[in-house]
């Protein structure tokens, strides 16, 4: 499908901003939604809405079936072994919090260590800080190289007898670096260390096969992969999930309740307390069909073309510096003018109809390491075009002049 035709499935892309056509280059923050996702959600409320796993009536059965089928679709999308290993959450943040809490309760002891990296998003830092402080464990941070890649030698040497878990991002949201997840997991497993992968920035761009990766946990968000906000996934190997105590408690997650004793439900329901977000789970399923139909190979080749083109065009602009030059990079490009604050760049780009993200991208420790107050980040999705990269480059050249 041509990109122009594809754009027609995204109604929001027709919007004008500040009297100019919207150029949406903030896809790493959230992607826009195709009609099929929007319609799936709306259709659920029109035709199927009912509480699930409870009533024995027609609608309840319909909704339950749709919800559980979505779980099967997600299982197949990431090639998990069992549907019971797919837990629906509010997003990556909640998925990580769940593991930090429940894995921490079961396995973290005084003096133990959790390993993260210097390029983690706050949501893969703070939950571990809290778990560590609760169990008197220690947080260890793997540094990055000058090119913005994970320092693999440092990773190898940081692992030890006390390491209980490594939590590493698949793709950096601030730099676009694609980490060698397979290798990371292999190294950690040699040390008997389970690995959680933060896949929030990976699932929009590349095929994730959790069995091939052999990761112990994998987390991602619907809204970054053309799906709705408010829904995400935690994949966990059954052998871990079965041992972990519940995270939240209430309805759905129980088998029997008396005031003396409660027995918990089996996987995955044990980790899905309360009425789930059925509509958005169905929207997420629709997003995975959308991606599958486009195909990750075509998505990647389109996005690589945009990234390379952007690097070439932006690289010609005076005093513009890229923040990282990783060997493998997703379609995220972080840059800065050495003499212009990223905030000024962002405000002026917005005036020209270009939406990018400026600031620290929820990676303050990384900004400190790079010694910048923040960056300007352009991130591309399936519907972006080389013409939009031209508009970005022209706008930046103009800002260069305005602030000279």
């Amino acid at each position, binding site marked *: 499908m041509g990109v122009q035709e594809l754009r027609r499935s995204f109604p929001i892309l027709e919007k004008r901003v*500040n009297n100019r056509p919207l150029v949406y280059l903030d896809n790493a923050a959230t992607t826009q939604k195709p009609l099929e996702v929007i319609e799936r959600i709306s259709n659920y409320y029109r035709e199927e809405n009912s509480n699930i796993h409870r009533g024995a009536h027609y609608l309840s059965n319909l909704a339950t079936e749709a919800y559980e089928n979505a779980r099967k679709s997600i299982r197949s999308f990431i090639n998990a072994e069992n549907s019971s290993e797919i837990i629906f959450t509010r997003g990556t943040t909640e998925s990580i919090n769940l593991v930090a809490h429940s894995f921490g309760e079961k396995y973290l002891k005084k003096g133990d260590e959790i390993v993260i990296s210097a390029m983690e998003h706050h949501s893969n830092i703070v939950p571990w800080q809290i778990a560590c402080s609760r169990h008197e464990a220690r947080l260890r941070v793997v540094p990055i190289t000058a090119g913005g890649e994970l320092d693999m030698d440092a990773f190898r040497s940081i692992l030890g007898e006390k390491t209980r878990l490594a939590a590493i991002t698949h793709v950096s949201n601030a730099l676009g670096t694609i980490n060698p997840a397979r290798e990371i997991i292999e190294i950690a497993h040699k040390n008997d260390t389970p690995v959680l992968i933060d896949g929030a920035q990976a699932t929009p761009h590349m095929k994730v096969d959790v069995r091939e990766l052999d990761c112990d946990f994998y987390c991602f968000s619907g809204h970054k992969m053309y799906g709705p906000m408010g829904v995400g996934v935690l994949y966990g190997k059954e052998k871990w999930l079965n041992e972990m105590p519940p995270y939240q408690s209430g309805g759905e997650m129980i088998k029997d309740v008396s005031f003396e004793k409660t027995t918990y439900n089996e996987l995955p329901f044990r980790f899905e307390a309360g009425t789930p977000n059925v509509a958005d789970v169905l929207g997420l399923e629709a997003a995975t069909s959308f991606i599958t139909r486009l195909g990750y190979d075509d998505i990647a080749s389109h996005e690589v073309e945009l990234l390379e083109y952007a690097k070439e065009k932006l690289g010609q602009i005076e005093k513009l510096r890229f923040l990282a030059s990783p060997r493998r990079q997703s379609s995220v490009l972080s840059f800065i003018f050495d003499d*212009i*604050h*990223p*905030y*000024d760049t962002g*405000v*002026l780009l917005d*005036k020209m109809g270009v939406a990018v993200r*400026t*600031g620290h991208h929820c990676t303050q420790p990384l900004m400190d390491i790079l010694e910048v*107050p*923040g960056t300007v980040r352009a991130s591309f999705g399936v519907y972006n075009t080389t013409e939009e990269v031209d508009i970005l480059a022209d706008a930046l050249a103009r800002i260069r002049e*305005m*602030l000279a």
Partner: protein
Amino acid sequence: MGNIKEKENEIIREFELFDDWMDKYNYLIELGKSLPPIDEKYKTDKYLVKGCQARVWLYAEHNDGRVKYSADSDALITKGIIALLIRVLSGQAAGDIIKNDMSFIDEIGLREHLSQTRSNGLANMIKQMKLYALAFEKAG
């Protein structure tokens, strides 16, 4: 020197002359560049206004019943907006500063800088200016 309303009206008239955003922002940038520097000793964390994407330092003193502000930022557009705020509020009586609703920002089309998505930088800046005025008024 005029009162707050007169100063606001003066700025509104100036901004009416611009027919596009480019002129307006070029003017803001120029204002930012010409903002009198803050004494370096106030460029510390203690004087940092919280919640701005760009760093903003704000200092105020009270002399002869008038509040005098000085400020700086590492972003130029932010500095330009600060220059406008200082032009309106600096040298005024604390009581007048507290009462003023700063509606001129709306009228000159810079309302978006008050929004949450800008990390509420300008809103925090105004709040901090008013807090200074309030403290001075209380102290007499």
